């Protein structure tokens, strides 16, 4: 039997830091059964037989928050061998309030007074001996951040646990209350002696959840009622007051504050940071920095490196040689453009260029064919014009090409990136070489390279960027600013059912929804967190930008307003969903009124920030290995297999794939949205791997092109044949709002920690997207062409239903209700 030690303490008391210091990397993270509260366990460093359980941060053992109930149930049922109670030395009285309750459980308690370095720096004094005597438990001074006294505290807890001595609480309430408690305890027949006081107090407080845990509940109402009448207060307040009276008296004896400064440094910072006028500007600056570094600059570099380097062809170590290579590669691109233009002109003029073109394409120029061609071309006096195209496929520059230039251009050979700097080949390249070397079957290497590596790689490519972002989040969280953000933004977000902290996931979601969803973990309130997870991906992420560019370019002539309108649609979807959802039964009921403790500002340690970053990143990587892997393989199969030339097998043409069949099957569903074309349906499905795939699929289906530019200008013309501006916008809105990519769905699954909630979130997103796109198309048709049909009626009904859901009366409940199976 391993020794079980529970780590208990207030939120912000340094509990997590202490837990990390005690267990190092020996941690298992999970959830408490039935709830989304995170459970962490770990083995004590150097003691394989000691398991430490990190209880949620709590202020009391009352039944009013989920965390309290979870912690309380664990302590009563699992009966750990000892409790290591960490208290914040700079805030002793409030922290000891919990300690007095822990002492009553009949479990040996060791108290670790944390932040002793700060206490000493403030020249305050805590009389440890006195504290020990007054509370009746062992007291150790520690600084979790600096690691001092930590091992000693753990050692004490271990030896106390081994001795198995049940401690009796020393603290006493006023005589009359003690007498009442004594009378109640006397009626608790089958409760172990050391737990009697705890149950007596809970019964006195009329704690219903405790009654459920007792085999027989004695009727103590007369005792409680008599006491309430006598003290003219309700029983629970009586106990709370008794505790604080005891603590105030004790604090005076044990705690000497040297300088009673009214405003601490932390308060002074708060005066500025949460100031009425400065709060929002300061917040904006902080967010811009976070966004700029983790999404725009360093984040983009990291993502490009991961996607094009590690999961692409390869990369230059430390970027050495990459600028040289790019220069040469650009030269080569220009040269091949000229070569092509010249050969084309020659062909038009009737010259035979086939042999030469083929040899150039193969990379080995046939010198005989070349000189023969040159003689002919010179005789025919051929000149050509090479067109340099910009990003939108417009001609940017026209360069005349004569024979001399053609000769020079042909001589330019394709540069090999490996010749510049230190070239590290990407994983697909290495794998391909490896698979070829072992003579792997074609279908298997196709599965590995195009299915697994391409699919999972597309997702893992975001990991470096996420890690950068998580560093920022961890820093903001542990320095104390995150709590202030919630305070500043709360009043705005509260209006549509979200929390002040919802802003951060949404901002990050503009870069990538995956870290955005994962950032929602900083939201404590269960309802707020679920709503945030469900709505974060409505914001157009980086991968959706190519879709917007394609639609804007192809159907709206590149109108400036299309992209901003996409963000507007996203924000509107969040606000509408927030208001609608908070009025539903699923979300109503347990919104917490805004009450939260603000930890004092302090510098976090590098180790803690990195650990927090890694924990979040790793849980995502693990997800990529399971759910995302399976989805990628499935879609690879649907995309690559089908019936071609009368037999089932690997198909070259996406038009013949199973996916195309499925697309044709489900396409009618999208007919009311104006794009009942199977190609659009298939593109939406491939968007599940990664949203930018929508553009690539369009390239294949509309242009027969394997590769298109990011905004797909090559297929603009053929898209104009299948779409109108209205149907295209409806398609855009649907793809912006519907289920996100697999990576994001995986993140939703991870954060919801429930399959049911994940399905609900995905279904809600799809239904909402469908309804929005339907309204846009049908009402758009009504206004532009006057067409009126069943679709129009449905659209009007949806709008009416939305307006009802938005404006139906609702009263935010001012209650803290927790429904937990006890």
């Amino acid at each position, binding site marked *: 039997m391993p020794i079980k030690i529970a780590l208990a303490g207030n939120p912000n008391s340094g509990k997590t830091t202490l837990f990390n210091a005690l267990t190092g990397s020996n941690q298992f993270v999970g959830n408490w059964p039935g709830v989304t509260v995170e459970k962490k366990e770990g083995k004590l460093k150097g003691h394989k037989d000691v398991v430490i359980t990190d209880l949620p941060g709590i202020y009391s053992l009352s039944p009013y928050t989920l965390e309290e109930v979870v912690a309380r149930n664990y302590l009563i049922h699992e009966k750990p061998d000892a409790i290591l109670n960490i208290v914040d030395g700079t805030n002793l009285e409030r922290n000891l309030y919990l300690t007095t309750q822990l002492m009553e459980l009949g479990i040996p308690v060791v108290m670790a007074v944390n932040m002793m370095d700060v206490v000493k720096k403030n020249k305050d004094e805590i009389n440890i001996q006195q504290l020990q005597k007054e509370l009746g438990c062992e007291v150790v001074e520690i600084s979790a951040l600096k690691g001092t006294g930590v091992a000693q505290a753990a050692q004490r807890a271990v030896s106390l646990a081994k001795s198995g001595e049940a401690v009796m609480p020393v603290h006493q309430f006023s005589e009359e209350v003690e007498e009442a408690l004594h009378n109640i305890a006397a009626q608790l027949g089958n409760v172990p002696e050391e737990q009697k006081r705890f149950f007596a107090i809970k019964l006195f407080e009329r704690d219903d959840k405790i009654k459920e845990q007792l085999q027989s509940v004695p009727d103590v109402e007369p005792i409680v009622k008599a006491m309430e009448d006598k003290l003219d207060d309700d029983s629970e307040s009586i106990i709370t007051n008794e505790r604080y009276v005891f603590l105030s008296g004790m604090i005076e004896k044990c705690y000497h504050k040297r300088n009673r400064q009214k405003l601490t440094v932390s308060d002074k910072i*708060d005066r500025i940071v949460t100031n009425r006028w400065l709060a929002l500007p300061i917040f904006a600056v902080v967010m811009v920095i976070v966004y700029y570094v983790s999404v725009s600059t360093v984040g983009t570099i990291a993502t490009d490196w991961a996607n094009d380097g590690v999961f692409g062809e390869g990369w230059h170590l430390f970027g050495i040689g990459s600028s040289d290579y790019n220069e040469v590669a650009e030269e080569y691109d220009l040269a091949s453009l000229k070569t092509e233009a010249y050969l084309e002109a020659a062909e038009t003029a009737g010259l035979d260029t086939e042999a030469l073109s083929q040899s150039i394409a193969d990379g080995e120029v046939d010198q005989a064919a070349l000189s023969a061609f040159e003689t002919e071309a010179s005789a025919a006096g051929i000149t050509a014009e090479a067109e340099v195209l910009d990003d939108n496929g417009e001609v940017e520059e026209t360069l005349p090409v004569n024979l001399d230039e053609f000769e020079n251009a042909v001589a330019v050979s394709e540069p090999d990136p490996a010749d510049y700097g230190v070239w590290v080949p990407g994983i697909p390249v290495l794998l391909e070489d490896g698979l070829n070397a072992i003579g792997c079957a074609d279908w298997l290497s196709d599965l590995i390279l195009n299915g697994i590596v391409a699919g999972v790689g597309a997702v893992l490519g975001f990991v470096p960027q996420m890690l950068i972002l998580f560093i920022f989040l961890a820093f903001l969280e542990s320095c104390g600013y995150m709590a202030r953000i919630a305070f500043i933004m709360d009043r705005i977000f509260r209006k549509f059912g979200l929390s002040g902290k919802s802003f951060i996931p949404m901002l990050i979601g503009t870069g990538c929804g995956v870290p955005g969803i994962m950032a929602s973990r900083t939201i404590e309130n269960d309802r707020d967190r679920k709503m945030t997870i469900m709505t974060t991906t409505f914001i157009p992420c980086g991968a959706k930008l190519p879709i917007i560019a394609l639609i804007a370019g192809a159907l709206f002539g590149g109108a400036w307003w299309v992209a901003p309108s996409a963000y507007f649609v996203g924000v509107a979807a969040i606000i509408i969903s927030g208001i609608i959802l908070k009025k539903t039964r699923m979300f109503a009921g347990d919104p917490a009124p805004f009450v939260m403790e603000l930890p004092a500002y302090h510098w976090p340690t590098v180790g803690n920030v990195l650990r927090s970053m890694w924990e979040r990143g790793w849980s995502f990587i693990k997800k990529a290995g399971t759910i995302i892997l399976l989805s990628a393989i499935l879609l690879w199969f649907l995309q690559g297999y089908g019936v071609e030339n009368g037999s089932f097998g690997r198909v070259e043409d996406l038009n013949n794939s199973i996916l195309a069949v499925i697309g044709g099957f489900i396409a009618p569903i999208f007919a009311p949205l104006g794009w009942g074309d199977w190609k659009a349906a298939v593109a939406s499905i491939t968007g599940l791997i990664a949203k930018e795939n929508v553009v690539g699929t369009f390239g294949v289906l509309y242009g027969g092109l394997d590769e298109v530019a990011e905004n797909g200008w090559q297929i603009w013309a053929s898209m104009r044949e299948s779409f109108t501006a209205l149907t295209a916008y409806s398609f855009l809105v649907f793809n912006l709002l519907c289920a996100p990519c697999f990576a994001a769905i995986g993140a939703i699954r991870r954060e919801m920690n429930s399959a049911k909630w994940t399905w609900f979130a995905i279904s809600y997103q799809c239904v909402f997207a469908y309804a929005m796109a339907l309204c846009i198309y049908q009402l758009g048709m009504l206004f532009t062409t006057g067409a009126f049909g069943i679709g129009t009626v449905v659209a009007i009904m949806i709008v009416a239903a939305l307006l009802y859901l938005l404006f139906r009366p609702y009263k935010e409940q001012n209650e803290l209700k927790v429904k937990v199976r006890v």
Partner: protein
Amino acid sequence: MMPLTMAKAGESNSIKRVGGKEEIRRFLENLGFVVGGDVTVVSENGGNVIVSVKDSRVAISREMANKIMI
């Protein structure tokens, strides 16, 4: 007696009464808002206030602050 929202920033006041629904009141009491205890408004932002109670800083909404009488 006046609600906490009326208190001047930086001034220490004694709590006279904690109102509101039972659960809320319990939660506030556990955080240190007990009758007879001292409370100081540190900062105010759009109606929400940050107060100092029992040596810790707690942010509460205006609705809650209105229910704490000093």
